[in-house]
């Protein structure tokens, strides 16, 4: 049973305070859904959890060990789906996914699995098609297939339902349930309601209130 937690996180982007004093806590099998208006910092929080963005202050910990201590290990246990799908237009879907699978420690297993993952999103027939011929939804499905192909404990999904049709969204809900049932954890941000059981909801907007003064005082403290 693992836990991933953040304490007193502060995010400052371009000298503007995005959120402050934000805590989160998520255990194996949990699902944390980030909501909030545009610009509240949902993506920033996800990027922070992924390690792309360093918190201006506060700590994130995995089983009570600070994540910063071993970023390589942290990267090994997470999958991140951002706004871009990272599908190369000149490579086929198969080549795209095989490359990403090959960078992980379970490379061989992942490269064997990805066909199954594509079928799960019913794009198995597109395996030999170059990325430039895919629609936005198909690219997103290929990107989601990437995270299913190789195992990792934490999924960080930034608006994963963008460009997906209803059927695929239902599929995604099912896949998230399966991932949680096997002890994985999911953090996702969304504007459309996903039908997920026992999800914990975190409203990021709540941590960005009283922006004006606090921003000034935090900057004055030199954070």
């Amino acid at each position: 049973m693992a836990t991933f937690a953040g304490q007193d996180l502060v995010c400052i982007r371009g000298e503007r305070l995005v959120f402050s004093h934000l805590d989160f806590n998520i255990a194996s099998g949990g699902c944390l859904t980030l909501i909030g208006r545009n610009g509240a910092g949902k993506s920033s929080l996800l990027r922070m959890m992924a390690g792309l963005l360093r918190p201006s202050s506060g700590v994130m910990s995995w089983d009570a060990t600070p994540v910063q201590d071993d970023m390589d290990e942290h990267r090994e246990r997470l999958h991140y789906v951002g706004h871009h799908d990272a599908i190369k237009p000149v490579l086929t879907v198969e080549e795209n996914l095989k490359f990403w699978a090959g960078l992980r420690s379970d490379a061989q297993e992942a490269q064997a699995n990805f066909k199954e993952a594509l079928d799960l999103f019913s794009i198995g027939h597109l395996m030999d098609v170059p990325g430039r011929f895919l629609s936005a939804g198909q690219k997103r499905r290929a990107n989601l297939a990437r995270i299913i192909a190789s195992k990792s404990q934490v999924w960080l999904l930034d608006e994963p339902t963008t460009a997906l049709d209803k059927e695929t969204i239902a599929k995604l809900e099912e896949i998230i349930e399966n991932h949680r049932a096997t002890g994985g954890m999911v953090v996702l941000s969304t504007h459309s309601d996903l039908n997920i059981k026992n999800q914990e909801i975190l409203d990021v907007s709540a941590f960005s209130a009283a922006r004006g003064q606090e921003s000034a005082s935090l900057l004055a403290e030199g954070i």
Partner: protein
Amino acid sequence: MGRFISVVRRDLRLALRQGSDSVMVVMFFLLTVVLFPFGIGPEGNILARVASGVIFVAALLASMLSLERLFQTDYEDGSLELLTLSPVPLEIVVLGKITAHWLTTGLPLIIASPLLAVLMNMSSDGFSMLMLALLLGTPALSLIGAIGAALVLGSRRGGVLISLLVLPLFVPVLIFGVGLVEAAIGGFAVKSQILILSGILFACLAFCPFAAAAAVRQSVE
């Protein structure tokens, strides 16, 4: 090591499928050098005198041309984020991309260089040393250039900015590269120039992947 090779293979495949890039670099190299006889006149002695310098400067400018695309497309389509997040150390990924860049731009330049040496009426004593100088010099150019390419990510008109950042840093490679060829033509000992060029290359190899990886991390933040 396997992961390093898979990054190199991916970038080579991308370069080959997109085609134009390395052909363009070699064509640019050839054309720039060919322009010189038109500019300074077809006098054999003068051309022979400037040959090594012209070829080296042209090679340097040609490898600048393709630097902008080293990280740019990966940055735009989100691949760079995922590469940063992959369990493979980013320095290895960056070194893989640099290797692929050198194989698609530096190597063709080296192969084309003897032809240009003939066109410039260079003494044949210098041919092998010209190729050796480029063999030691062009990887250093790719390595140093990668820092510039990573630093300008996200800025507009990155290409021009890279030149301003990186060209001054190419000066040592230029000086000792040309020095090596000139020494060989003049019949002097070439060992010291070879050692210095190798030294520059190894120093770049040790330092540049870390600097470029740090710049990439900064850019995806």
